[in-house]
């Protein structure tokens, strides 16, 4: 039974995945404390490590065509355990949406409107996401096509405008990274931006020609990964060692653009980038959780759930962290393990499905 009447094409799926991964383009700066000037290396390794995981997700989706994650859980794990696992997944989606929302709220509050309380920003942002989710996956895919183009444009422009401030010596020495830091960095990078595409298992049933999804998802992942890479390279090249102490290196490095006294003070570009990219991310997570609950309770349509789930997500975003450093601490410390459990379990699901030879 289809909860969503819309269908998206595989090229739209590419853009959706790319925009989703680009949603974390500013959040990955949290690994600067761990990896100092090697963040770009960790981005690459995270991307490389996430491609096999992505293939697992696609294989799982292909094994159960037309069924989303909740249904797959039910088939593989049985009715009771499956419901439990699905409920945990929905909690995961909601909380990640909340974390992203709180990040957006913090950055906008701190950089643009310091006196405004964070919840006002979060609520208004969530309203836009709620409206999009209510309109369905098609609208989300269509908006993400254009937003992704804007994001890529902004990233490239800021990169080129900062070329004169870049110092390649900021990357030296190569490979002075301890293995422990490298693994920790890769772990964060794997779980935080890249493998959160597990939520697309909820979206897969609505993709036209699901068999071609593999190319789209991998391509989207790579596009998103390259965007994050360019952004990270730019930050490290411009800011050097100071990027380790900065809360948001992207904004600070773009603040340094000063050409001919006209092309200056362009941080609005980066904040727009943040808003757009995070919008896609939060909307997709939001959508995943709304669909999940609708499917879990066998509802006919997910539309009445949009506002209640939205208020839950907003409350989560306000309650979770009081200030940004807490968020960063969580994301570098326990966060990756938290997300890894959810991102890794589809592997287990696939194994069990293969063993039990499902679907019959």
């Amino acid at each position, binding site marked *: 039974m289809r909860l969503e009447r819309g269908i998206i094409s595989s090229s739209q799926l590419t853009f959706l995945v790319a925009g989703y991964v680009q949603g974390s383009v500013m959040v990955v700066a949290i690994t600067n404390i761990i990896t100092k000037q090697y963040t770009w290396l960790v981005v690459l390794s995270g991307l490389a490590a996430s491609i096999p995981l992505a293939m697992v997700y696609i294989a799982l989706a292909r094994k159960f065509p037309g069924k989303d994650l909740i249904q797959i859980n039910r088939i593989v794990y049985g009715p009771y355990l499956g419901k439990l696992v699905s409920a945990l997944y929905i909690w995961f989606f909601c909380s990640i949406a909340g974390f992203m929302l709180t990040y957006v709220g913090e950055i906008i509050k701190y950089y643009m409107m310091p*006196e405004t309380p964070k919840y*006002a920003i979060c609520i208004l942002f969530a309203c836009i996401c709620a409206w999009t989710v209510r309109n369905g996956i098609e609208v989300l895919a269509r908006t993400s096509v254009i937003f992704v183009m804007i994001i890529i444009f902004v990233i490239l422009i800021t990169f080129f405008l900062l070329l004169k401030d870049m110092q390649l010596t900021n990357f030296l020495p190569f490979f002075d990274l301890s293995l422990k830091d490298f693994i920790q960095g890769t772990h964060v990078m794997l779980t935080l931006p890249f493998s959160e595409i597990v939520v697309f298992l909820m979206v897969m049933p609505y993709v036209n020609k699901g068999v071609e999804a593999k190319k789209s998802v991998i391509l989207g992942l790579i596009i998103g990964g390259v965007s994050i890479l360019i952004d990270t390279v730019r930050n490290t090249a411009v800011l050097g*060692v100071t990027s380790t102490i900065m809360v948001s290196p992207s904004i600070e490095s773009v603040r340094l653009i000063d050409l001919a006294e006209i092309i200056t003070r362009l941080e609005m570009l980066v904040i727009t980038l943040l808003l757009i990219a995070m919008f896609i991310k939060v909307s997709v997570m939001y959508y995943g959780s709304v669909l999940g609950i609708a499917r879990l309770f066998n509802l006919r349509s997910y539309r009445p759930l949009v506002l209640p789930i939205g208020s839950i997500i907003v409350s989560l975003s306000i309650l979770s962290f009081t200030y940004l450093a807490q968020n960063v601490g969580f994301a570098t410390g326990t966060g990756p393990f938290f997300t890894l459990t959810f991102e890794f379990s589809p592997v287990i699901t696939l194994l069990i499905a293969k063993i039990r030879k499902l679907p019959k």
Partner: protein
Amino acid sequence: MKNRMGFILEIIICFMLILPISGCWSRHELNSLSFVVGVGLDKAEKPGEIQLTTQVVKPGELKSASAKNKSSGSGGNGTNAYWNIKRTGYVASKIIRDFSHESSHRLYFPHNQVLIIERKLAEEGIQKYIDTFIRDNETRFNVLIVVSEDRANEVLDVSPELEKLPAINIAKLVETQNVTSESPTVRLIDFIRRLMNKTTAPIAPLIRVTSDGNEKTVEVFGTAVFKHDKLVGELNKRETRGLLWVINKVKGGMIDVAVPSGDGTVSLEIMRAKSKMTPVIQDDTILIKLDIKAEGIINSQSGSEDITSPVHVASLEKELSAEIRKEIIAALKTAKDLNSDIFGFGESIYWKYPSEWKKLKMKWDEVFPDIEVALNIDTTLRSTGNISAPAVPAKE
């Protein structure tokens, strides 16, 4: 769906209520803000206290203000386009808040051009004073840092000839130094980068107020050398250029060399310079190889000999290289005397030999004075100007 319209209406009303609640707090009309263009930090009389001076723009006066007001007395703000506010206190951030006791407008820092620190204050260490300028969101990282010989509030009071605001004058002054390359241009981000490095010493341009009779002007005259965050010494203009040769920041300048045959001096203008620093570690001795390439043109000569033949030009190039070498060695000597690594030798060692670096950085203070430098200077004179032989009667 009869109550659908009512529902939508409710939502719209909720939105309209939310909108004024949210950002209106952050709303500052243009005429409720006073734009700070310059900040000065001085030592105050009481120990531990600093005096903070902020220069605030009066936009309405900008169009009508004369550049220099000779008739007004000292500190006369008759038609000046700026206003300097001074306050003392222990912590910079509290002083900034205290300004609200005097100023009817809220101080607004994002357009700050320059941060001036008095020399006496810099000698005590400035990390604790500039932290607010790094941490606060309003102050930006491309503000210029300057150390002044005199008190900062005096510097900020000097009405400039060409600009309307002293702070903008200072900022442009510091940035124009690349014509002579005798003073560095240091932004806050560059300062912080050197500050955060264990071994590299921060630098900042030095300015002072010179008075020529009744007229006062601001002059840039060298570089302040720090060690960690305390000021330990200075480089004069020549030594500064030596430093800039090494860190690859020379963009122009004029060097006088003597003509080998003794017929006057030739002024050579530097057009381009590039430097490369390569560390070599051999059995506990550290050698830094510096390769400097410079390009220049002949700007003027005081003699009447034709110095544009290839032989002459080659000898001029040698003289130029010798001069550059002298400048660099002078800078090296002063840096070693002050024991602060302003060149970034430590960093270059870290880039190439990270494992050795870990041992070296602990005892860098002992290692640094013993570093040997091998200079390899390569100069090329590209052009002789508009004329080749000087404008003198041709020799028969």
